[in-house]
């Protein structure tokens, strides 16, 4: 039984191992040791071009925030359409493979917009977010989301979905929805913190 699980889900197990390691780093003594040394990096981020522009021009920062939201809408739309299809609640008369495959490119586009604008915004308020626990939760959620999407969801759904256990497919959809909701919600909460 153990051997079957190990051979059937190597990527999933790798992702779980990476996430557990990240969690152990986050809540164990390792993070306490690394955390102070990261302050220098965050202080440096504020001195970069992005940091200077973000701090100096409020309108530029606000505009990039809006583009970040547009990227989030694009990403969220693809996640909802794809996972909604896996759960059998939207686009039920379109083949699963088509929805999942065709929304992936748009998803990558949305994610790229979010990452690019997110880096810009982080530079503008680097020394503020460094002290915010919710920022680190978001980074953890984002890492989990990207690892899950590219290392678990996508390779798994690359197989013929008819041959996959329907319960596993639905669990993947629910996990994907939850992890991206967590990314968005923690991101929103950064604005209310500090």
């Amino acid at each position, binding site marked *: 039984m153990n051997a079957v699980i190990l051979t059937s889900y190597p990527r999933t197990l790798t992702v779980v191992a990476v996430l557990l390691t990240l969690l152990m780093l986050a809540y164990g003594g390792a993070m306490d040791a690394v955390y102070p040394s990261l302050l220098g990096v965050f202080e440096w981020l504020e001195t970069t071009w992005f940091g200077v522009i973000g701090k100096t021009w409020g*309108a530029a920062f606000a505009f990039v925030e809006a583009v970040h*939201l547009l990227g989030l809408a694009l990403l969220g*739309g693809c996640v909802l359409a794809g996972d909604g299809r896996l759960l059998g609640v*939207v686009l039920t008369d379109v083949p699963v493979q088509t929805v999942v495959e*065709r929304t992936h*490119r*748009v998803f990558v586009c949305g994610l790229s917009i979010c990452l690019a604008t997110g880096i810009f915004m982080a530079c503008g308020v680097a020394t503020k977010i460094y002290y915010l626990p919710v920022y680190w939760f978001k980074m953890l959620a984002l890492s989990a989301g990207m690892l899950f999407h590219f290392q678990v969801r996508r390779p798994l759904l690359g197989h013929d979905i008819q041959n996959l256990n329907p319960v596993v497919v639905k669990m993947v959809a629910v996990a994907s929805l939850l992890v991206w909701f967590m990314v968005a919600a923690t991101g929103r909460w950064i604005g209310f913190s500090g």
Partner: protein
Amino acid sequence: MNELIYNLAVWLDDTEWSRMLHESYYMYNWVESTHVLTLMVSLGMLFLIDLRMLGLALPDVPASRIAERLNVPMLIGFAVMFITGTLLFYAVPVRTSQSLWFRIKMGLLVACAVNAFLFHKRMNESVATWDIEPRAPSRIRLGAMLSLTFWSIVVVCGRFIAYDWFDCDTSPNTLIDIVSGCVDGQTRF
């Protein structure tokens, strides 16, 4: 007209529920977060429909099917956004009604509604002839482009409302004061 809007906003501001909502840290933030996060449902679905018309998403799925099937979650999302948006306005009525960005946003929402009506009308009239084409005809594509543009500016304006650059008590610019609807001698901001 601006005085009427101001008086109405002051009346709303004086109501008990408006004050309670504004002063409730968690409730206000929950409402605002719901408003922002529902973007993923409403605009997410809308973007997929518009991108399908432009041939940039799901090009091998019939356009009418994408539009019909994603319409329901999109409308649910917009309904939640409308309710939470109304609550956000109700919590801070005076400042919001005199926000330049809010006024532009409201104008654009009307433009979005008109564009959506025309878009669906044109689509329903002709979709049978191009339903399985990867790209919709130019008239439909124009509607999709306008939709993407209008909604993107709506999001930008919505984000800008949070900033006080042109508030009536801070703006030194007369033209912006007029457009924002600032009232001479107003005591509430």
